[in-house]
C-alpha cells in the first residue's frame, strides 16, 4: 500500500518537473524583468476584442488593438491635442483647407484633406481617399449594424479627387465645430472590401476581415486566436521614417482575471498591462508589492465620476439642499483615503486637461457648518443635534443608488452616507447590478434621489446630450438623451447649441468655460473625481504614452522601444 500511495503522490507532485524539461522555457527567473525578446512586446488586456472590423467594433479592447495600425486622418496625442496623421495637415479656414459657405440660407462647409503619400496597406496598395470614402459609405448604409453614426450623419457628401485619388473633399450639411476629429472612422482597404460591400452587404459584419484585418499603419494583424491572444506584425510597407515601428511584433494576451494579469507580469509572460486591465484600487495594491520592479503610469482621464441629483424630487429641486450636500461631503478626504490622492476631486464637468476646464468656478469645499446653515435656510430643521432633519412633518431622506459589486463606489457610498447622516440627512442605499441600473433604472430615469456612476467625455466637444433641455429622457422623447438630473437652464442650453457650430476655437473655449460657471452655480450633479487610467510596464520600455481617453494607448506604438533598441 505504501508504494501505491507514494506512486500516486509522486504522480501528482512531479508531473510539473517532467514538463518543464520538455518544453521551452518562457521566462526563467533571471530574466524576469527583461523583455523576452527585445524586438517584441506582449501586453495583457482583460477584455477580448469583439470585432476588428472598424465600423462594427464596440469594445475598448478592439480600439486598443486597432490603434496599432492607426491610419486615421487625425488623432490625439498624449496631451489630447489633435494632430494630423494620415493627412498632410488639418484643414482650417486659415490655411484655406476649410471653406464655410452659405447655400440657400444654410451654413455649410467643405473640408479638403490631402492624404500622405507614405501610407500603404501591407500588400503595397497606397492609402487613398477611396479607402475613407468606403468607410463612410458603410457607416451611413442603413443595412449595416453600425452603432454610432452621429458624425457621418452630418456629412452631406464625400468625394475623392486627384490623379492619385489622394484628395478627400468632405462637405458638411451644417457648420460643425468638430469636423477635424473626423479621423475617428478609419479607412478600410477599398480594393478588398468594396466588392464584398457591394455584392453581399449583409455578409460584411460576418466577414473574416473582422478577425484578421489589414491595417495601413505601423502594424497589421497577423493572427488572432480567440480567447487567447492577438498578434500584430510590423507593416512591411511602412516607409515614412517617423512612423516606422521600432519593435517587430506586438502581442495582446487576453487575460480576464486581475490576479492572473499580475502573475503574468511578474512571471515575465507579459511586458505590460494595458489601461483596461487594472482599476486604480488594484493598481495601488499591486504597486505596494512590486512598485520597485515596474513602471506605473497614472494618467488622468475622461471618465467623470459623479452623483446625479434628480431635480424632479422636490427636496433636491431646492438649490440650497444640493449645495448643502456638496458642502457636507468630504470629497477631499475620501479621495485621499481611497486613492492616495491619485484621483483629485472634480469641481466641474471638464477634466483639468480639457480646453474647457475652468478653475474659477464656484467650488464646494467640505464645510459642515455652512451645509447645516443652508439646510436650515431651506426649512429642513432638526430637533436635536443627532436627529434627522424634518420639514412640515417630512423626513429629509434620500435614496442613493449605484452599481452593486463595484467596491470603490460602495465604499464611497458608505462614507457619504455617514457624512451626510451627521448633517441630519438620511441616506438609504439601494444598489443594483449594472445591467439593471443602466439598462432600466437610468435608461428610463427611474431613480428618485441620487445616482452615482460615470460618463466618458469627448475630449473636443462639450457634452450636449448630458445637459441640453431637449435631452431629458422621457417617454415623450422616446428616452432620448442622457440629461438624467433633468436640468434645464436656458443659457446653458443655448451655449451647448452654439458651441457645436462655433468654428472659432477661442470663442468656443470661452463658451465652454462659461458653461462650467453656470453648471457649478446650479450644481445639477455632485462631481466626485476624474478617474485616472493606470497601466503598468516593465522597466526599460520607452515612449509608453497612454492618453487616458478614447484614443487608445497604442496610438504611438511605432515609437515603443526597449532600452538598448
Amino acid at each position, binding site marked *: *500500500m505504501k508504494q501505491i500511495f507514494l506512486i500516486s503522490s509522486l504522480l501528482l507532485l512531479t508531473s510539473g518537473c517532467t514538463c518543464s524539461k520538455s518544453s521551452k522555457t518562457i521566462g526563467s527567473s533571471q530574466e524576469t524583468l527583461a523583455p523576452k525578446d527585445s524586438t517584441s512586446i506582449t501586453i495583457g488586456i482583460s477584455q477580448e476584442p469583439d470585432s476588428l472590423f472598424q465600423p462594427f467594433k464596440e469594445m475598448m479592447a478592439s480600439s486598443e488593438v486597432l490603434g496599432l495600425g492607426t491610419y486615421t486622418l487625425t488623432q490625439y496625442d498624449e496631451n489630447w491635442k489633435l494632430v494630423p496623421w494620415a493627412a498632410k495637415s488639418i484643414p482650417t479656414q486659415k490655411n484655406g483647407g476649410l471653406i464655410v459657405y452659405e447655400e440657400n440660407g444654410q451654413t455649410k462647409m467643405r473640408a479638403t484633406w490631402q492624404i500622405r503619400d507614405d501610407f500603404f496597406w501591407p500588400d503595397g496598395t497606397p492609402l487613398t481617399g477611396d479607402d475613407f470614402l468606403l468607410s463612410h459609405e458603410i457607416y451611413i448604409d442603413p443595412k449595416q449594424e453600425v452603432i454610432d453614426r452621429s458624425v457621418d450623419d452630418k456629412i452631406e457628401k464625400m468625394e475623392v479627387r486627384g490623379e492619385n485619388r489622394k484628395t478627400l473633399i468632405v462637405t458638411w450639411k451644417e457648420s460643425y465645430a468638430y469636423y477635424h476629429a473626423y479621423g475617428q472612422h478609419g479607412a478600410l482597404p477599398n480594393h478588398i472590401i468594396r466588392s464584398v460591400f457591394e455584392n453581399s452587404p449583409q455578409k460584411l459584419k460576418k466577414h473574416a476581415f473582422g*478577425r484578421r484585418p489589414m491595417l495601413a499603419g505601423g502594424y497589421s494583424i497577423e493572427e488572432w486566436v480567440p480567447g487567447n*491572444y492577438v498578434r500584430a506584425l510590423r507593416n512591411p510597407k511602412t516607409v515614412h521614417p517617423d512612423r516606422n515601428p521600432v519593435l517587430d511584433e506586438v502581442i495582446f494576451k487576453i487575460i480576464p482575471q486581475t490576479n492572473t494579469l499580475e502573475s503574468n507580469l511578474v512571471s515575465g509572460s507579459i511586458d505590460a498591462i494595458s489601461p483596461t486591465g487594472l482599476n486604480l484600487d488594484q493598481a495601488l495594491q499591486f504597486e505596494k508589492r512590486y512598485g520597485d520592479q515596474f513602471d506605473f503610469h497614472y494618467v488622468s482621464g475622461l471618465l467623470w465620476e459623479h452623483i446625479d441629483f434628480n431635480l424632479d424630487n422636490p427636496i433636491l429641486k431646492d438649490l440650497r439642499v444640493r449645495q448643502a450636500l456638496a458642502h457636507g461631503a468630504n470629497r477631499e478626504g475620501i479621495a485621499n483615503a481611497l486613492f492616495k490622492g491619485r484621483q483629485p476631486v472634480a469641481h466641474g464637468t471638464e477634466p483639468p486637461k480639457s480646453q474647457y476646464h475652468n478653475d474659477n468656478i464656484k467650488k464646494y469645499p467640505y464645510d459642515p457648518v455652512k451645509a447645516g446653515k443652508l439646510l436650515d435656510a431651506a426649512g429642513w430643521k432638526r430637533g436635536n443635534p443627532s436627529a434627522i432633519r424634518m420639514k412640515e412633518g417630512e423626513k429629509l431622506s434620500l435614496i442613493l443608488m449605484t452599481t452593486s459589486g463595484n467596491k470603490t463606489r460602495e465604499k464611497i457610498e458608505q462614507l457619504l452616507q455617514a457624512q451626510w447622516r451627521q448633517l441630519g440627512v438620511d441616506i438609504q442605499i439601494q444598489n443594483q447590478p449594472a445591467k439593471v441600473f443602466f439598462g432600466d433604472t437610468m435608461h428610463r430615469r427611474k431613480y428618485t434621489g441620487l445616482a452615482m456612476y460615470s460618463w466618458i467625455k469627448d475630449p473636443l466637444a462639450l457634452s450636449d446630450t448630458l445637459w441640453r433641455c431637449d435631452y431629458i429622457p422621457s417617454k415623450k422623447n422616446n428616452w432620448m438623451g442622457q440629461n438624467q438630473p433633468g436640468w434645464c437652464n436656458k443659457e446653458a442650453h443655448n451655449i451647448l447649441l452654439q458651441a457645436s457650430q462655433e468654428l472659432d476655437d477661442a470663442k468656443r473655449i470661452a463658451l465652454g468655460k462659461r458653461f462650467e460657471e453656470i453648471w457649478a452655480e446650479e450644481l445639477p450633479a455632485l462631481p466626485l473625481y476624474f478617474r485616472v487610467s493606470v497601466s503598468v510596464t516593465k522597466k526599460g520600455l520607452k515612449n509608453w504614452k497612454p492618453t487616458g481617453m478614447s484614443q487608445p494607448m497604442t496610438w504611438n506604438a511605432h515609437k515603443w522601444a526597449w532600452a538598448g533598441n
Partner: protein
Amino acid sequence: MLHIINRIFQMCLILALLSVGLFGLLSAMPGNPVDMLVTSNPKVKPEDIVRLKKLRGLDKPWYVQYVRWVWGYNEPYRPVEVGDVSLASSLIRESRTHGNADGERGASRIVSLKSSLRNPNMSFTFSEVQSSLEKADPELWAKLSRQSLQQKILEKKRVDWLIERISQQNPAIYEAMGNALKKEGIKQIKIRGLNDVKAEGHVLSIPASTAGYAYFVAENPQGMETVGHVKVEGSSAGPLHVEPISSRIVDDPDKFKVELKKFISLSTQGEGGRIEDSSDEGDDRWLKFSLINSPGTIDGEGIYRHKFDHPGQTAIQFRVGDGEGNEAFAAFSVEHGPIPDPTRFNNGFLHVFAGDTAALGFSNTYKRPVWDLLSGEKIICGDGREGPGETCDDKNALNGDGCSNTCQDETLGWGGIAGAKISSFFVGSGRVGNTLALMFPAILISLLLAIPIGMISAYRQYSWMDYVVNFLAFIGISLPVFWFAIMMMFLFAEQLHLFPAGGIQSPGIYDEGLWAVLSDRWYHAVLPTVVLSIAYTGRWLRYMRSSMLEVLPSDYIRTARAKGLSEAAVVVKHAFRNALIPVVTVLTLSIPALFGGAVLTETVFSWPGIGRLQYDAVLNSDYYVAIVVFLISAALVMAGNLLADLAYVLVDPRIRKA
C-alpha cells in the same frame, strides 16, 4: 429498447420546454444589449436603437423571436423605414419609343444604362476578361502570362485580381476593356416594370393610359436595384435630369412620407427653364406639387403621403412648378413592405440537425457565428477554399482576407500538410475543443487516482494510510478551486517560473511545427489540469471509499472468502464490482462537466473554454450563445442519466435480469 426510445422522446420534450422557458427568461432580463448602448455612448440616438433592434430582430416580442430562432424566417430584403429613393431619369442614356401596338402606348427598348449599379464587371467570367484582354493588348497578356505570380492568379481564376493587374500595367487598355465589358454587362441586367408597365427582356410594354414617363426597376446580378424611366410621348425635350440629394422615406407607422423638397435639385434640359434647388426652408413656399397618375397626396409642405395596403414597389410621378410657368417632372419609387424575400430564408436552430451550422445563430458579443465559437474557426484561404491545411496562393498576397498562416504553402508536401492539419486542429480549436482538452485529462487522471486509492483506503480502513488519504481528500474537496488555482499560479508561475501563468498556447507557436505546438499546449495545460484533478480526485475518492466500506462487510464477501478465493479476487471481482454501482451514478453525472467546463478554473487560467463563454454570454445578454450552451448542458445531463441507467445494467446483474 422501448424504454430507451421512450426516454429519448421525454428528453426531447423536456429540452423543447426548457428552451422556451430559457428564451423567455433571457429576454425578460433587464439590460437589453442594444438599450445599454444609450447609457454607454452619449452619441447613440433613439433612432439608432430602433434601427439596431430591427437589424438584430430584437424589435419583435420574445415568442416571435423564439419561433424565428427555432424555425427561421424570411428576411425582409429592405427595411421599411429608410429606403433611399432613387430618381431615375439620369440613368437613361438612350431610349427609343416605338409606335402604337394594340392597346399599348408604345414599347421601349432599353439600349444602355448608365450604371449606378456599380461595378458590373465583377460578375464577368474569367474567360470573358481574358479574351477581351487578349484582343485589346496581346503584349500585355503575354507579359502577364509569363509572370509566375500572375499565372498563379489566372489558374485560380481570380478575375478581380487580373483586372487589378491590368489597371496597374496599362490604364488605357483597362478603360477600353471596361467599356467593352460594360456593354456586355447590360445583358445581365434584369428589368421589371413598375405600376402597369410590363417588361419582357429589355423591352417595356407601356399601357395607353401612361402619360409622361414609364418606370421600371433594373437589377444587376448582385441583386442591386435602381429605378429607371423612359419618356413615352414626344422626344424633343429629352430626358429630364433630376439629381437626388438625400432623400429617404420617413418612417411613420401608418403612412409613408416622402419629403420631396429635400431632394429636388433639378436642371431641366428642355425648354422648361430652371427651377432652383429648394432645399432651403424659407424660399420654397411658392413651389407647387401635383401628382400625375399616382396614388396619394402631396401637401403644401411638399410631403407625400399615402398608405399602401400591399407590399411592393410603386413609382410615384409628380410635377413641380414655380408659379411662373416653369415646370418639371420628377419621380421616386416607394418600397412598401417589409417584403419578405423567399430566397433569403434564415434557417433557425432546428436546421442544425440538417447540417446547417450557421443556423445556430450569431454572437453579437464576439461577432462570430455561434458554431465557430464552439467548434473552432474555419479559415478562409486566399483562393477561397476553406482551411486549415488548405493551400494559399501566397501567404502575404491578400493579408486581410481572413487567410491566416494556417494555410500552408503547397511546397510542404503531404507529411507537412498532415502535420499542419493536426496542429491547426489544436491551434484553431473552438471552445468545445478547449474544454475537452482540459476536462478529459483532468477527469481521467482523477478516476485513475480516485478508484484504486479509494479501494485501498477502504480495504485498510483506520490504517495510517487511510487517515492520510482521507486528510488529503478532504483538503481536495474543501479547497476553493479559484483560491487553489491562484496559489498554484503564484507558486509555479510567479515564484518558480516553471509553468506559464495561464493561457492556452504561446503566440506564434504555429510556425514552429507540430511537436512545438503539442508540447506548448501540454505545457499550458498542466497547472489547470492539476488543479481540477485534485478537486475531482478528493470527491470521487470519498465516494469510492464509502461505497467500498458498505460492500466489504457483506455476506457475499464473507462467502467468497469462505469459498477460498484469493484476497485479490474477492476484492476486485466481488467487492469492487458491487461498490461500483453508486460510483457509476456519480461518474455519468459528471459527463456534462466534461463539456460544461469549469468557470472558475478557466477564468483564473485564462483558458478559453465553454464555462467562461457561458458566463460572459449571460452577462452580456448574448442570447444565442447562452441558450445554445444551456441546451447542450441540459441535453448532456439527461444523456448522462440515461447512460447511468444503461451502465447499471452492465454492472448490476440484478437489473439485467429484471
